[in-house]
């Protein structure tokens, strides 16, 4: 400790200088504290105090994030990297958080549970800090803290309102599986720290240490670390939790889980493979083979199992596993320098999933369950909703004129360019499987219009009509955005 004493004032100076880079997170942290006080003291006077506080803090954070574009750099001894890539991702995160907060507020508006509803916004704010840290870091300590913050918040979000048997079961499976994956990741990190002595994975010494380490050991450490990231991304074989959790969790929480944590995790993962994947040593080869394999298996497994689902939420869970495989492909594109393909696909994926879950939530409230068969014949009763829902399905498949098509096109062309440079057959396989599974996914997304428009009604009980609630309006806006970006992709593309 004595060696550090002369440097302490230097350290403090550089920490103070780094604070402006951390403004977004500081605002979210202040919002978190205010939200706790709001739900403790203002709950009786004003029921939506925490909701309002959380929306205000997201808006302020987005404003600060916008200002940050003028002040790029690194902060806190290279622990945080403020670059355009991370800032774009944080915008998407904040958007996803605002939309899911609105959906949650609408979902629990009339619930009779005597649990304090304000706390759920507090938890969301807490997870947002973890996610925005994940978007900016290349340091293992920060990455681990971020992953754990998001995970713990997600366990609470799934478990807090659990009232039926199934919901508690989903929460337990999620918490146990997630903690086990995080623990294994921690062990892998400790091994990596031992090999390298540096915790920054973009550091040159880090790579050198991994190359010098025994092959078997560094391979095992790599696998252990990918376990933790894989759980957050839910790629095969760490996807087992996601269908159960999506089915058991309240629908808006599932909307949150399928978008925001995935954005954060894929950003971290892209930074990781960019640092590790571009060297000439065997280590990069192992990593590349692993990613290609996992991407192919995720796309196949997700889309094939989704075919035989009868519950829409379970179907969306498997479809998002398939999309994760596709996102891994986009991350490979990022490694080759196609940042915009990854960001565009990520943004479109966020819009699509939020819109789809918003529609599922509206229908679930009307019908009382989310089985496909309950949609039978509803197309005549709710023409606008089902037309837009089908359009979101089209976008998820990737058919023009939707934005999903443009996103897939960018990713495919990035990968194909990479193939022409490297001549590696693995990329061709990725392209083939990606195209094939897009066709497969057509069959299950089109079950929605099939049931709604072509099948006749089974039960005569008519649910109450769906009014112009905020969540309906948000869903419509997102669908319109999908069409707009499908017709004019440059509107979004020029931002990246």
């Amino acid at each position, binding site marked *: 400790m004595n*060696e550090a004493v002369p440097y302490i004032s230097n350290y403090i100076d550089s920490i103070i200088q780094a604070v402006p880079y951390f403004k977004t997170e500081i605002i979210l942290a202040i919002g978190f504290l205010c939200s706790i006080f709001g739900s403790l003291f203002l709950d009786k006077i004003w029921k939506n105090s925490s909701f309002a506080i959380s929306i205000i803090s997201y808006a302020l954070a987005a404003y600060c994030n916008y200002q940050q574009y003028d002040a790029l750099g690194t902060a806190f001894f290279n622990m945080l990297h403020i670059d355009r890539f991370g800032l774009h991702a944080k915008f998407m995160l904040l958007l996803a958080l605002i939309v899911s907060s609105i959906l949650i507020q609408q979902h629990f508006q009339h619930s009779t549970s005597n649990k304090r509803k304000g706390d759920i916004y507090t938890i969301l704010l807490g997870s947002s800090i973890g996610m925005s840290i994940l978007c900016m870091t290349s340091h*293992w*300590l920060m990455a*681990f*803290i971020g992953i*754990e913050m998001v*995970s*713990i918040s997600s*366990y*609470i979000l799934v*478990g807090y309102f*659990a009232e*039926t*048997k*199934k919901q*508690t*079961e*989903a*929460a*337990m*499976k999620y*918490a*146990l599986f997630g*903690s*086990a994956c*995080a*623990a*294994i990741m*921690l*062990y892998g*990190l*400790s*091994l990596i*720290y*031992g090999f390298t*002595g*540096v*915790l920054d994975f973009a550091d040159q010494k880090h790579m050198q240490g991994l190359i010098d380490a025994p092959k078997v050991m560094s391979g095992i450490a790599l696998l252990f670390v990918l376990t933790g990231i894989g759980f957050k991304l839910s790629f095969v074989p760490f996807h087992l939790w996601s*269908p*159960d959790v999506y*089915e*058991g969790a309240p629908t808006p929480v599932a909307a949150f889980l399928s978008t925001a944590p995935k954005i954060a995790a894929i950003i971290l993962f892209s930074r990781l493979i960019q640092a590790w994947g571009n060297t000439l040593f065997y280590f990069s080869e192992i990593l590349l083979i692993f990613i290609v394999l996992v991407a192919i298996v995720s796309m196949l497994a997700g889309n094939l*199992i989704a075919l*035989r*689902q009868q519950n829409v939420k*379970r179907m969306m869970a498997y479809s998002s596993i398939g999309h994760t495989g596709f996102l891994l492909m986009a991350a490979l594109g990022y490694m080759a320098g196609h940042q915009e393909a990854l960001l565009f696909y990520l943004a479109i994926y966020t819009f699509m999933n939020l819109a789809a879950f918003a529609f599922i939530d509206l229908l679930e409230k009307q019908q009382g369950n989310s089985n496909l068969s309950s949609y039978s014949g509803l197309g005549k009763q709710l023409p606008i909703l089902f037309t837009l829902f089908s359009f979101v399905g089209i976008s998820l498949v990737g058919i023009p004129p939707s934005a999903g098509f443009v996103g897939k096109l960018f990713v495919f062309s990035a990968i194909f360019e990479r193939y022409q440079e490297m001549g590696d057959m693995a990329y061709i396989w990725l392209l083939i499987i990606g195209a094939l599974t897009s066709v497969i996914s057509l069959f299950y997304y089109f079950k929605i219009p099939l049931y709604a428009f072509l099948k006749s009604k089974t039960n005569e009980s008519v649910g109450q009509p769906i009014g112009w609630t905020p969540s309906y309006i948000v869903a419509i806006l997102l669908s319109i955005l999908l069409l707009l970006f499908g017709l004019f992709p440059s509107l979004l593309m020029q931002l990246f």
Partner: protein
Amino acid sequence: MISITHFLVVSAIIFSIGLYAIIAKRNAIMILVGIELIINAAILNFVAFGRYDKLNYGGQVFALFAIVLAAAAVAVGLAIILAVYRKYKTINPDNITDLQD
């Protein structure tokens, strides 16, 4: 003389015991205990390796954070297991299988 190898062997043994407790899947609490064992194996590794990283103390700091985060995760996990027990009257994961394909 205790060298770094001793620490590594001990932590590898603890890791294996923890992994067995998770895979055997007898009882939800046992799974949590297994998770704790794995985390502690990792913490032991961090502190042992941290001895050689005198400049930054990265290992020790990581160990402290890992302890705090593990405690938080276990608190949430236990609360969820309690909720499961109230509904199912059992915490054996093999008997809790309502959600399936």
